[in-house]
């Protein structure tokens, strides 16, 4: 077939697809224009403007139209690379810690009887929706010198003189992991309820210990969900703002703080926009990986 013929064929194929998949459905369901308008104007257009602004030139107080790669070039500066490394490090550790705690916890909750399970879920939702500000503040109370764990440890005689544990590396890591746990539970919960009880029961009647049946049957069945949870929580932690602001030291500054600082305090909107574009690209790639992981999930299919 000649190239022209192929082009004509494809042209014919594209026309009906556009008509059948986009124009006709909208004709039959014109209300669909409203969500398209809302998501388009208030979500997609802002991202498009941000993309354009990321190439603009910075001026004294704001920015002016232009086309330059200066802001993207700054990705190779230590300002960016150190904070990126710090964020990645915290996010990897916090997602692993929270998922490690959440996997057995969610498994047990999924085995609760209905009423306690509903109560546990209401409780988890309340913790989940708790403002990051409240969580970070209350953890700082526990770790403060005057009231909390340090003075308790001093009272026990383990240390000579109590001092505040925050801001600090471990305080920040603990805060991030803590904040992730309810999310991890809710991500794992659907798959845990789909696990076939008969499998573990059979293993235990055949003499396997509960621990053994958990590690050899439950964990392998959940492996894809666990991977998906790790990636999602990694992305989620990368966006943390309030926790590192409150519990972390200046050297623990993470990506979201960097973006906020550049945009609001330094007024460098184009650089903040370029950072956001990079951040978004990474997020989209990671999210696509999780979607692929979940598609082949044997537990979800049953």
């Amino acid at each position, binding site marked *: 077939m000649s190239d022209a013929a192929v082009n004509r064929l494809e042209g014919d194929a594209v026309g009906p697809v556009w008509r059948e998949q986009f124009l006709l459905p909208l004709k039959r369901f014109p209300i669909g224009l409203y969500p398209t308008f809302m998501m388009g104007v208030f979500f997609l257009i802002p991202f498009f403007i941000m993309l354009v602004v990321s190439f603009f030139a910075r001026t004294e107080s704001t920015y002016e139209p232009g086309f330059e790669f200066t802001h993207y070039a700054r990705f190779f500066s230590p300002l960016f690379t150190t904070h990126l490394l710090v964020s990645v490090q915290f996010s990897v550790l916090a997602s692993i810690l929270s998922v490690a*705690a959440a996997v057995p916890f969610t498994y047990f909750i999924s085995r609760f009887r209905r009423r306690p399970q509903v109560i546990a879920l209401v409780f988890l939702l309340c913790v989940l929706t708790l403002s990051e500000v409240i969580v970070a503040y209350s953890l700082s109370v526990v770790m403060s010198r005057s009231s909390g764990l340090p003075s308790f440890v001093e009272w026990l005689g383990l240390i000579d003189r109590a001092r505040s544990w925050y801001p600090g590396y471990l305080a920040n890591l603990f805060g991030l992991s803590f904040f992730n746990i309810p999310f991890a539970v809710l991500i794992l919960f659907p798959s845990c309820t789909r696990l076939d009880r008969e499998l573990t029961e059979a293993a235990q009647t055949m003499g396997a210990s509960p621990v053994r049946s958990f590690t050899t049957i439950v964990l392998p069945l959940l492996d894809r969900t666990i991977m998906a949870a790790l990636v999602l929580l990694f992305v989620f932690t990368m966006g943390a703002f309030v926790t590192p602001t409150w519990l972390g030291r200046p050297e623990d500054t993470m990506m979201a703080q960097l973006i906020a600082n550049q945009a609001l305090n330094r007024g460098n909107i184009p650089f903040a926009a370029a950072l956001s574009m990079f951040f978004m690209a990474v997020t989209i790639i990671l999210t696509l990986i999780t979607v692929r992981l979940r598609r082949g999930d044997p537990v979800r299919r049953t």
Partner: protein
Amino acid sequence: MNLVRWSKAAFITVMFGMLAAPLLIVAGVSLNSKKLMFFPPKGLSLQWYPAVFETNQWLEALTTSVIIAFTAGIVAISIALPTAYFLWRHKVLYAKALFLAGVVPFALPPVITALGMLIFWVEVGHVGQIWNIMIGHGVFLVTLPLVMISLGLESIDDEILEAARTMGADSRRIFTTIIFPMVLPYMVAGYAFVVVLSMNEYIISYFLGQHATITLPVQLLASLRSGYSPIIAAASVMFILFAVVVFSLVARFGDLPKLLGAWTPKE
């Protein structure tokens, strides 16, 4: 065997205890009798609760947050219901793309969305308005009602719709008499989630508010920075109680495990 049972019980207790700690600490601090943030509290007093309503700054932040949350819920539902219905009725690319656009906001780090929206409102010349945050939260949190309403639509039995059609009901009548009542609980649950999350959301409110519109979480962090007072804790406790009431109602009138994706065996 017993050791395993004990360690399991201990693990569950520690997890629940740890997760409950912020709630208990904030509640404890709010009871201090002096203007100090001690935990455990020194001297008991409930004076900081009425103080939230008597201090202008706090009352304003509280009202702003409540107005934003309830409006954002309406915005989110108004987008989510037609999108979910569109995809359910017509499985076309357009509807799939629209659904995807509704799922994306939740997957992105909120700081990106916040910056994009801030630049948008700067370009439009409409900075710091309360409407910006209402629409911002509505669009940002649309994912939850969208997924929940879709769950509700999937649970409708095809035979009921078929029966209605053979008895001569047109699609508008089917929507108002069958579909809408059946997805209503899912809509209410989705609305509740948006309201609670909007009340607690920090970074979009902070970016879009621009010191002109101040929500309660923004006010909370600002006052934590400037000076301590148990009012902060009292305001937080009211927030927490609000979430407890909302989610208990959702659990009471809806199937919470199912809303959260639990698998229920078909009868």
